């Protein structure tokens, strides 16, 4: 909607705002550093509302928790939009100057009365209304989200529905206001910025734009494909069709992290060649024909990382990598040479300076300036530029600079994995404070100090009905597969809802259960809304 993919504001704007919505985000556990900025905001007087099916540790800090039905985010956003419009809380001046498509959008949310919103989301109408009014009345408001929004087949639409709210109220492009997807690692943002996505070159240049392609071909000295590549979910489909028969995996662990992981493991095994480059021998690496041991980027290599507020920061080498491990850059350069390309010896700074020559938004960020400023926020187009604290400030220029932003009406669809008699419970996947995704970095290198046995968390009411004692072993099935896992009671959970983490597949292979269906717009699979049944194990 806005173009470049990044949080629109800075951490500073979370600390100095009036209203924060964390939507589908348990930042307290999953983004603990970011949450410190949230806490500063709270101490400075901001209100916090948390939209999450579970009453998470973030929700425990909230002035209002909205325990939304899994997969009904668009219904809630549209209901909020209708209420904000009908209560006259829109920023009409901003809408008129900086946006297009308001009338069509207003008509699209007309059906979303508070009553209908309540039916779909499960949240009392008065509470929805309260959020609408609190957000609509706030001088400066923030919406922050993470995987609870994006790891759905409707992930992109979910995000659009939140952006619509910010456009209605003018809560973007000004201090204290913003839209912020929180990044789960120190360099998730940087990976995308550097073009590690199938449709973009570094700096969000379009792969399918001829002008952009020619520019990159000229500097790189090789012809480049005119069509965008496949995203992760498409790659696994293509592997299933054996259209793809060789795979080079760097720093990913799809043998544990993919939805419907049983299928993923099968197609990985069916490849002609699988090359894995990683810092440890992951489950995926164990399936590989060739393993290239890699240096750990945060301590054994030079380079940069980019965080959730678009700040590029330098990373410095503190240790020599162990054994035969080498920095990714060296591995790739050597591969290129073996393939007959005459690549020179490259330092990280050489690679960075090349990027700066191709990506306008990084051009002003020399290593020297990154050192001097303690990192800079993109866009930073020249060496005089101080970096950009807030994106899209142009929307507040009068007259507007550039194109107005369109409203994007989005329709709510019920989760594809429907609940029925056979699969009556909703399973959602979540992260915990002490672990990251499949645990490659948090569990393989060392045992997390707070680690408890991985289990299916279930309400005592559901468990009792199913004859499951706290700590019992149960058989959990979805339409994809079945696993055996311990159950544990979660007193904070409402009946009907269950959760697991993806952190320890050896104990709880949750992605056997998740659905491989993916969002056609983002390629992200459905990790959050799974229909399951839970059966007590009968003595055998």
């Amino acid at each position, binding site marked *: 909607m806005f173009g470049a993919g990044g949080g629109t504001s800075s951490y500073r704007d979370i600390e100095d705002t009036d209203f924060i919505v964390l939507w589908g985000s348990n930042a*307290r556990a999953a983004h603990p550093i970011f949450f410190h900025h949230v806490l500063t905001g*709270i101490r400075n007087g901001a*209100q*916090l509302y948390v939209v999450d099916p579970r*009453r998470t*540790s*973030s*929700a*425990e*800090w*909230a*002035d*209002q*928790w*909205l*325990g939304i039905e899994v997969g009904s985010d668009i219904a809630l956003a549209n209901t909020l939009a209708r209420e904000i419009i009908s209560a006259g809380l829109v920023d009409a001046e901003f809408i008129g100057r900086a946006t297009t498509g308001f009338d069509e959008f207003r008509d699209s949310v007309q059906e979303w009365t508070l009553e209908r919103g309540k039916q779909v989301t*499960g*949240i*009392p109408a008065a*509470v929805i209304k309260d959020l609408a009014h609190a957000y609509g009345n706030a001088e400066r408001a923030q919406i922050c989200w993470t995987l609870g929004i994006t790891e759905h087949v409707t992930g992109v639409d979910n995000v659009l529905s939140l952006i619509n709210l910010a456009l209605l109220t003018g809560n973007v492009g000004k201090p204290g206001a913003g839209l912020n997807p929180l990044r789960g690692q120190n360099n998730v943002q940087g990976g995308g910025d550097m073009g590690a996505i199938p449709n973009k070159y570094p700096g969000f240049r379009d792969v399918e734009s001829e002008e952009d392609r020619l520019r990159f071909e000229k500097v790189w000295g090789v012809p480049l494909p005119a069509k965008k590549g496949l995203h992760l979910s498409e790659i696994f489909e293509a592997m299933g069709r054996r259209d793809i028969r060789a795979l080079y995996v760097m720093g990913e662990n799809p043998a544990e992290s993919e939805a419907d992981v049983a299928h993923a493991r099968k197609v990985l095994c069916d490849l002609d060649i699988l090359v894995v480059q990683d810092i440890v021998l992951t489950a995926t690496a164990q399936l590989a024909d060739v393993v290239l041991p890699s240096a750990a980027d945060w301590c054994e290599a030079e380079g940069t990382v980019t965080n959730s507020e678009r700040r590029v920061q330098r990373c410095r080498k503190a240790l020599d990598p162990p054994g035969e491990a080498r920095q990714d850059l060296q591995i790739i350069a050597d591969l290129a040479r073996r393939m007959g390309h005459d690549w020179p010896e490259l330092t990280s700074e050489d690679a960075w300076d090349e990027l700066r020559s191709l990506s306008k938004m990084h051009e002003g960020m020399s290593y020297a300036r990154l050192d001097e400023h303690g990192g800079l926020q993109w866009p930073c187009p020249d060496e005089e530029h101080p970096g950009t604290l807030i994106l899209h400030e142009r929307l507040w220029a009068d007259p507007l600079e550039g194109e107005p932003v369109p409203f994007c009406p989005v329709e709510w669809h019920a989760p594809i994995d429907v609940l029925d008699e056979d699969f009556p419970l909703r399973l959602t996947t979540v992260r915990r404070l002490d672990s990251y995704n499949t645990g490659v970095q948090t569990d393989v290198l060392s045992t997390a100090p707070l680690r408890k046995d991985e289990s299916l968390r279930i309400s*005592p009411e559901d468990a009792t009905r199913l004859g499951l004692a706290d700590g019992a072993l149960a058989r959990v099935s979805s339409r994809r597969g079945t696993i055996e896992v311990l159950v544990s009671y979660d*007193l904070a959970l*409402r*009946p009907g809802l269950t959760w697991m983490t993806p952190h320890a597949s050896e104990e709880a292979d949750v992605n056997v259960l998740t659905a491989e269906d993916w969002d056609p717009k983002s390629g992200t699979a459905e990790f959050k809304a799974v229909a399951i049944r839970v059966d007590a194990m009968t003595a055998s």
Partner: protein
Amino acid sequence: MDLYLSSATATDAERAAVDALIGLPDTRWTGGDRLDAADAITARTGAVARARRTELLPVLHAVQKAIGWVSWGALNYVSLRLTVPPAEAYGVASFYAMLSTEPQAATVIHVCDDVACRIAGAEEIKGALRAELGDHPDPEGACTFLGSPCLGLCERAPAVLVQRSGSHDDLAIAPASPDHVAGLLRSEMTAPDYAEPVASIPQAAGSDRDSLRLLRRIGLLDPTSLDSYRAAGGYGALERAMDLGAEAVRDEVTASKLMGRGGAAFPTGRKWSAVAEQPAQPHYLICNADESEPGTFKDRVLMEGDPFALVEAMTIAAYATGCSYGYLYIRGEYPLATTRLASAIHQVREAGLLGGTDILGRGFAFDIELRRGAGAYICGEETALINSIEGYRGEPRNKPPFPVAVGLFGKPTVINNVETLLSVLDIVLDGGAAYAASGTPDSTGTKLFCLSGYIAKPGVYEVAFGATLRELLEMAGGITGSGKLQAIMLGGAAGSFVTEDALDTPLTFEGTRAIGASLGSGVIFVLDDTVELLDTLTRIAAFFRDESCGQCVPCRVGTVRQEEALVRLGRPSTNGERDVDRALLADVAGVMGDASICGLGHTAATALSSALKAGLLDGAFQRADVTPADSGSGLDETKRMEESR
């Protein structure tokens, strides 16, 4: 706030004790029943829930009172009810002497063994209790006893405080005798007839009564009756204040040149104006009635004898400074004053002179909440007191910012001592100029002094500023005991020791400053020449070591080093040890004075330093060195100190 609780659960009795004070939980998320399904989808907690933390100390008091101690299960329930991290709740519960986080006897007798009581027979009382209960009473038995810092009953020393869980009220007994205390153990303890406060005011009996101002009503009215107070002219000052208007009241207080009576002697008018001018809202008023300075009991006598006057004075202060809410923070060891103030506040509120929105028909809204301390000297320090009200450990804050700008709950806060506030009544009634006409130009009005120790008629005395120490001693009937003065502890344990040559010093702020002393809280504790001063100083050192909040290193370590050196001074020494200790004491005093966060550390060495300077410890230092072979075991002494911690 995400709370991580242990598996310990509260008993029904513990929950009931909490719920009786703060009501039943309204959601499952704050301690309610899980099966109440309505809130499984939404929760409204956040800032509102976290704001309940201020109820922490009252709730812990309630549990201590009902159960006799605060268990892990109770702490978990309290944490959930008030949204306090359990580690912090424990930090608060373990901060105060009157709260126990271990099982404890239902009756705990706190035997004051501080400076005044230890020369009046505290050890005999402990001996009687030991004879009844054994040397090491079972902490979980029916009754136990503990040594206590000053209980603020010095004019009737020796004193004990009987802290009782269950339905019985706490009892303060003074004077206490060994027989009486031992007898208490054998029969059902009943409330003694309290000595009426007027008994603590020797001037009230004679012709001096006419000269009394702050003390003038005590003994002449019924301290449990608002009608009696009003019949004596009570609430005339509030009417007068409202006739004048808030700004004019502040002007009168400024014109009066009234200085704070809590020890720091800050101009009250300046403090009030500073708060009144703060744009941030609301403003808070705190009456600091956490009178804990050893040797001090004047505020207790005022509150027991004239409680309505304090309520009226607080209302005037709030009116003058734009405060909508006030806290009266009274020390936990004052059961009678607490009862009388609670009753006074209730009666005044019933009469429409507190609460509501329209006091005296002037559109002014103000209410007072009575808060009890729980045994922590440091909470008399204003920012520690503020933290205590907020539900934190009573640890002083760094200043600036000062409470006038950033005080209670981060808002502008007036915090005044009891005596200071009561002085305002006459300032309003008679005008600031009239008030300033009494006393001296730099120390206006009258001042209360607490006389105790070897003095014929101990008690609270009120004199216009300017009277000399000698005159005060004469008013109080002269020195008893041997009749020969050794020293006077002036201003409290945080004050100084002065000797014969200071007797003609006028007791004014400027007069005492001129001799390197201070008025402090008005303590005049008289020691005859039979008192072992080293023992008194060692008790003072132990007091500061025990009462240091531990937050800053100079005070936490310095108070320990100081006590250790004094203990060594009391036993045979090895070669050269005395010189090392003299230098050590000077170093420690310097570091504590320079680098401590608050006044406790700043003054923890002043009494000792003054005694050293006056040569009062020369005898101890001159005791002949002995060889190590003769010195006996210093380990016993070290062990004793460890146990006393």
